[in-house]
């Protein structure tokens, strides 16, 4: 999966109203439940960059028996930048590139079909296990719609990968002959 633009996500979370860093992290983890967890340091670094570019401004200080907390608000420029990002269509797979795919190709170049097949089988095993795990998350009685939608996204991709692994497994021998004539 490609890298998500954290700054745009934070801009989006601020669109609902001013928040401070800790709230932003919590909202992020709640809305994107299966995403890579966001570190605090990353939140503050991103906010600082956004402030430098004039997309957010500090909107006040808050102190509740803990450290000072700065609340940030979206500026006019920030909203424009967010709108532009939302309106831009993501290029659908501009390059056929994935570590999985690259690894299989390289395995075929440097090793025999058996090794390639072995790699594919191991990968299939791991994919299946992850698919099952996510299905369990999704079907758990406690699962909310956030979890379901996130799991669905991953399941659909794993399903596609698994289908590709299946068909490629059947084609390894032919493919090898073509690569090593």
């Amino acid at each position, binding site marked *: 999966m490609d890298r998500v633009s954290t700054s745009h996500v934070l801009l989006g979370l601020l669109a609902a109203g001013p928040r401070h860093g800790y709230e932003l992290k919590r909202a992020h983890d709640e809305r994107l439940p299966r995403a890579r967890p966001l570190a605090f340091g990353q939140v503050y670094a991103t906010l600082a960059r956004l402030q430098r570019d004039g997309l957010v401004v500090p909107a006040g200080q808050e102190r509740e028996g803990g450290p000072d907390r700065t609340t940030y608000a979206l500026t006019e420029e920030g909203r424009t930048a967010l709108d532009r990002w939302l309106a831009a269509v993501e290029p659908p797979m501009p390059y056929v590139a994935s570590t999985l795919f690259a690894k299989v190709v390289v395995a075929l170049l440097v090793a025999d079909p058996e090794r390639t097949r*072995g790699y594919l089988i191991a990968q299939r095993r791991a994919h*299946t296990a992850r*698919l*099952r*795990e996510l299905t*369990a998350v999704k*079907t758990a009685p406690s699962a909310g719609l956030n979890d379901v939608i996130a799991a669905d996204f991953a*399941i659909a991709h794993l*399903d596609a990968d698994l289908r590709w692994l299946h068909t490629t497994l059947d084609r390894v021998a032919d493919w090898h002959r073509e690569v090593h004539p």
Partner: protein
Amino acid sequence: MTYLEARGVVRAYGPTPALRGVTLDVAEGEILAVTGPSGCGKSTLLHCLAGILRPDAGQVTWRGERIDEWSEAARSRLRRTEFGVLFQFGQLVAELTAAENVALPLLLAGTGRRAARAAALAWLERLGVAEVADVLPGEMSGGQQQRCATARALVTEPRVLFADEPTGALDTVTGEQVLTQLVRLAREQRTTVVLVTHEPRVAGYADREVTMRDGLVDHSGLGLDAPVSGGHW
């Protein structure tokens, strides 16, 4: 003692061999997916395990009993009381309403009409199709029909549920809803499920997956019959 097992099961349709000596164990309470390409014999294996088909050779045992040696009547009774069967489509009686279709197995077991209807309505409710209780199958959507069929398969609270491509005729979202409900209800009742499918996504609902190829369980490593981490949850 294994719960449900096939040992060297052979079965042919005319000259075409569908199963060429399949050996498979199903543990109590597990959800097992049998996957494989079309024509690999997975449906035939399911039918042999469920006692619908009698194998040409080999044995099928359930809780230590050779059910492949039982008479048709005895196997019918077994399927009616201990097993539930769910097919891809077309299993509802066209002239009976949804509630009557679901109540049918109970009526056959001798339950009174009122009690059978009450149980049928409860199951339709659990599957989220209470509104079609008095509707004929021809007037329902595919998803509603399959939910009724699921209710009918589960209404007797079977020990084992055999499902043959239960979502094959449904769209992805509807299929997933049906499967989610099926798996959830099966776990609640501790029903063992044997799920035949060719879709990885459907196999994802299982605890364990067995792959078949050319009438045999594939032990070449392609098959995933060894439980992977996180298999039981």
